[in-house]
């Protein structure tokens, strides 16, 4: 059974959502609810640390992209940080690296772009 753990921490740059475990169609609703909760306070940017995520399917990534769409309408966006190889592979295949920023690592305050290069 896929188990997804979602935590939200306050970071200097704003709220930081962390996903760990695995996410697929079974946990997409849980993910959608958590994102909706974060987005409901009107912020424009959200960073999602996925360094602890071992698998993500298209249903889950669709939820992330929909959140990004909402944030982009506000003039901001969603950023993914630290994808593991399996998840990076899915993101790359779906072209997500062309749609939003994916930082290869999770260190905060990085000035560089660090976005995922198509592989």
């Amino acid at each position, binding site marked *: *059974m*896929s188990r997804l753990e979602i935590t939200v921490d306050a970071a200097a740059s704003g709220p930081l959502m962390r996903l760990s475990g*695995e996410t697929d169609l079974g946990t997409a609703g849980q993910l959608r609810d958590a994102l909706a909760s974060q987005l409901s306070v009107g912020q424009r940017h959200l960073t999602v640390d996925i360094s602890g995520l071992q*698998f993500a399917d*298209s*249903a889950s*990534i669709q939820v992330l992209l929909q959140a990004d769409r909402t944030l982009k309408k506000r003039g901001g966006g969603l950023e993914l940080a630290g994808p593991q190889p399996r998840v990076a*592979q899915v993101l790359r*295949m779906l072209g997500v690296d062309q749609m939003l920023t994916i930082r290869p690592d999770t260190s905060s305050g990085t000035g560089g772009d660090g976005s995922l290069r198509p592989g």
Partner: protein
Amino acid sequence: MTDQRFDAASLHALREAVLAYATAAGMPERRAIDVMIAVHELAANAVRHGAGWGRLRMRITAGALYCQVTDAGPASLGSQDSDQIPAPARPWPFQRGHGLWLVRKAADRISVNSGPGRSEVTVVFTVPATP
């Protein structure tokens, strides 16, 4: 050859089994992950739009890994024609949430044999020859 049942609760186990089988067949890691991704999306489709459960059969024949996903639901792909599956030449239509786009992108070949009350999709991956 393997034959296993899956449902919503056993997708994780299914993914691990597929990854292990593809790896044991000698596929490089990234390709084995492609197989896992493709089979997961087909199984997820059966769970969500089909009968809610299905079967996976895997075999290796003549240098190719065949993964056949069947479920007893209404033709969950909505078509008997594999050309109806969105072509990867266009960007992923994430608003419509098509996981099948990813299947088409990951697999070397895909064949669909569906009808009322039955959906059967086979994805094929070339297995590198043992040196």
